[in-house]
């Protein structure tokens, strides 16, 4: 049974001191250790961004994809390696901006994997431009007069498209986040955990303390995570504005929605039953197909 530390290597994390990514790094290690996953049993996929720099720090079977493109290779890997589990880490720019199409299609596809979004509401790595989740009217180097679009509602999108596990975490609460990860990793189907991950360098609005004053845990309410419409309504409450005041602007974290037992894509795909490389041990006999031409 691996220790959390087993999943890290000798490379020292280069995230800014105080960055929310450190906490997410720790929480995932703990969740993996708690679940007892062995290194050769799963692979991790990252997009490009500060979150993606984590690929250098994990001691796992890893795939550092292109910006915005972590989901497609992860799905293909899952479908051709039924013996492996899959974790995807993506950024908000990465996963909800450039990669948004893949995200929505992944929700409706329901290939089993856990998708962790490092939602810092900013482009970290490219030095602070607006991301799709940046709050309305927040000024950034790419939008000096403030962002004019409504922020993306990843929870709402996931619900509209039938994702089977939809949750939100906060990097400021490692035990809660670890527990969410454990649930998501144990889910059979597509699981999204959107995590508020304060970027201490570029996002001076949505800071740790900003969130601490606003988040509350769904488990501590009478929330029932099985009503898709209610969950959608709840997601609308997290469209916060720059002016949103701590007392009125309450941000739920926890599991918004989950449904178990919905058939996964891989379950409906007979060819996905065996590792793909086993089909290339020797030439495949195609004489029957050729004979029919």
């Amino acid at each position, binding site marked *: 049974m691996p220790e959390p530390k087993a999943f890290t*290597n000798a*490379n020292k994390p*280069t995230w800014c001191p105080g960055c929310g990514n450190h906490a997410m790094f720790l929480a995932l290690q703990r969740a993996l250790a708690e679940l007892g996953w062995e*290194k*050769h*049993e799963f*692979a991790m*996929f990252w997009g*490009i961004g500060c979150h993606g*720099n984590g*690929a*250098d720090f994990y*001691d*796992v*079977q*890893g*795939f*550092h*994809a*292109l910006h915005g*493109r972590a989901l*497609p*290779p*992860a*799905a*293909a*890997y899952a*479908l*051709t*390696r039924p*013996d*492996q589990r899959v974790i995807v880490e993506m950024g908000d720019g990465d996963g909800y901006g450039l990669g948004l*199409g*893949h995200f929505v*299609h992944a929700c409706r596809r329901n290939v089993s994997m856990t998708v962790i979004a490092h939602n810092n509401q900013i482009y970290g790595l490219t030095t602070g431009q607006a991301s799709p989740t940046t709050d309305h009217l927040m000024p950034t180097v790419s939008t000096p007069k403030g962002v004019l679009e409504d922020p993306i509602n990843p929870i709402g999108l996931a619900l509209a498209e039938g994702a089977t596990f939809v949750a939100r975490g906060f990097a400021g609460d490692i035990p809660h986040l670890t527990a969410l990860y454990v649930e998501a990793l144990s889910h059979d189907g597509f699981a999204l955990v959107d995590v508020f991950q304060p970027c201490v360098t570029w996002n001076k609005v949505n800071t740790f303390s900003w969130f601490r004053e606003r988040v509350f845990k769904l488990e501590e309410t009478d929330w029932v995570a099985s009503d898709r419409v209610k969950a959608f309504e709840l997601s609308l409450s997290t469209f916060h504005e720059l002016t949103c005041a701590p007392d009125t602007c309450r941000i739920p974290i926890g599991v918004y929605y989950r449904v178990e037992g919905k058939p996964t894509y891989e379950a409906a*795909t*007979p*060819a*996905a039953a*065996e*590792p*793909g*490389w*086993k*089909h*290339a*041990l*020797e*030439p*495949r*006999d*195609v*004489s029957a*197909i*050729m004979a029919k*031409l």
Partner: protein
Amino acid sequence: MSQHAPYGHEVRIRIGGPAGFGIKAAGQSLARVFAKAGYHTFDLTEYPSLIKGGHNTYHLRVSADPISSHVMATDVLVALDRPSARLHVAELTSGGALIYDPNDFEPDPAEDLAGRDDICLVPVPLSEIVDAAGGVKIMRNVAALGATLGHMGVELDGLEASIREQFAHKAPEVAEQNVAVARGGHEHARSAGCAFPASLPYVEPSQRILVDGHEAVGLGALAAGVGFYAAYPMTPASSLLHFMAKHGDAAGVVVKHTEDEIAAMNMVLGAAFGGTRSMCATSGGGFSLMVEAFGFAGVSETACVVGLFTRPGPATGLPTWTEQSDLRFALHAAQGEFPRVVLAPGDHAQAFEYAWRAFNIADELQTPVILLGDAYLSDNRATTDPFDLDSVEVSRGKLVTEGPLTDHPDALDAEGRYARYQITDDGVSVRVLPGVEGAVQLVNSYEHDGYGYGAQGENAAVRTAQNEKRLRKLALAKDLVPAPNRFGPDDADLSLIFFGSTKMPVTEALRWLHAEGHAVNALQVTTLEPFPTDEVCAFLRDARINLVIEGNATGQLEGLVREKCLHAVHHHLRRYDGRPFSPEQIYAAVKRLLGEPVELTVAGAVAAPKEDA
């Protein structure tokens, strides 16, 4: 006076009409009849980018002798509407027949027949025949097929058998209704009263198969053990997706119609990471979207195969037509530099062979391989010797799929740690699949060190070493890829250079030229990257006069030849109107360069040599 190009014993049939009339399906069943009987066939379907209406044609060449391509000449023209008569009457050979339904239209001698009096009109009341059999409109095709055979004096049993086979899964009445319609057409045409000049000598039945280029590629990929195929539909590549979708599940291939081409190519990388032989295919527009991930395959040393089946561009261009204008794009797509292999099969047999070889090359080099084709190869269907399945080999290169890592000391660094991107002499490192204990690795779109980590890749020495390691594979590739294909005599008056599907009309034209005693040879550049510099330059040096033939406007192959050989190209023949080269066109171009100019007519006939030439 015009004369035929030196065709063999053959008959050419064109069926023309609006889209949605089942012209292609009808034509293909005719092809099957002749193929079954042992003839060589080659078809060419031309259609616009819409679903119904417009002007579609299906051209079928049937020959007792081996043939390599379509030709322009037509002996029987089935015009299911007036435009089909008008547009194609000029292709009719002398004595050729025009089959039409007099209830549709009566050809106007001047407007529709261009004043020709050397052709035979064969009015067949197609609709009436269908109605008489209680059929539906689309069955006019079947009546036309019957009429075609009737006019040619060919018995109907082959077609009847084919019809019965085709409708075997439906109620028996359906087949019999179609047979009745075919008979109706057959009888009507026989009574048309003018003799059919062309004839097909009897041939022995053969084992040949009737395939289009994508069936050949698909079979090759399946034989190679492909386990993942992803694509977003795009003409002409879509038919390969359909083929894979049809056969995939039973063969154990995960076939994914993705949300876009970006996902397709990125999925291919993910599946390949898991060790699965993976492929995607598209045409130029889709490939545009794959470019970034294609480069990712390069830097991450991912073995995979990308089918690039081109059509005329730019942008949406001419979706249903053909062109060879993406050669340079295939060679240079994506930022940065990395080894890629580009193979351009020239016909169906090569399509099969290069497809399975592509997977071996990709695995042995751990780099992406492009299979470069075009709509002409993708779509046309020809009789071919059955593919040599016994020749197929699977070679996965330096790959460890299972078992203890310690059995593979060459995969480990000095400390016994697995180094996915260890620097090696040939540029290829041992690839250990995830799932093997200890196979911790990072497949990275960033430059990286021997383990795959990105931060270390920024070191100038590490970067240089990794970049050079990757590029060294091109030297290794030279021994793995198909060598150029040389045809014709060593000592020639004219030497042709070409690539891809142009092989088909070139081979045909060479056959005619050789039959006439001309000393012309040709070199098919089968691998465009790494470029076979030695062979091409030697061929050029030996050439008295050279001629580069390619299906684009800017001379992309010509540029490559100049760059690699520092040798001038004397002549070129280029085409970029969406149509493939015809052998007649190549034949005429060569004859002109040989000082025996002939003039080309639309009918594919060539005017007699000019007196004063």
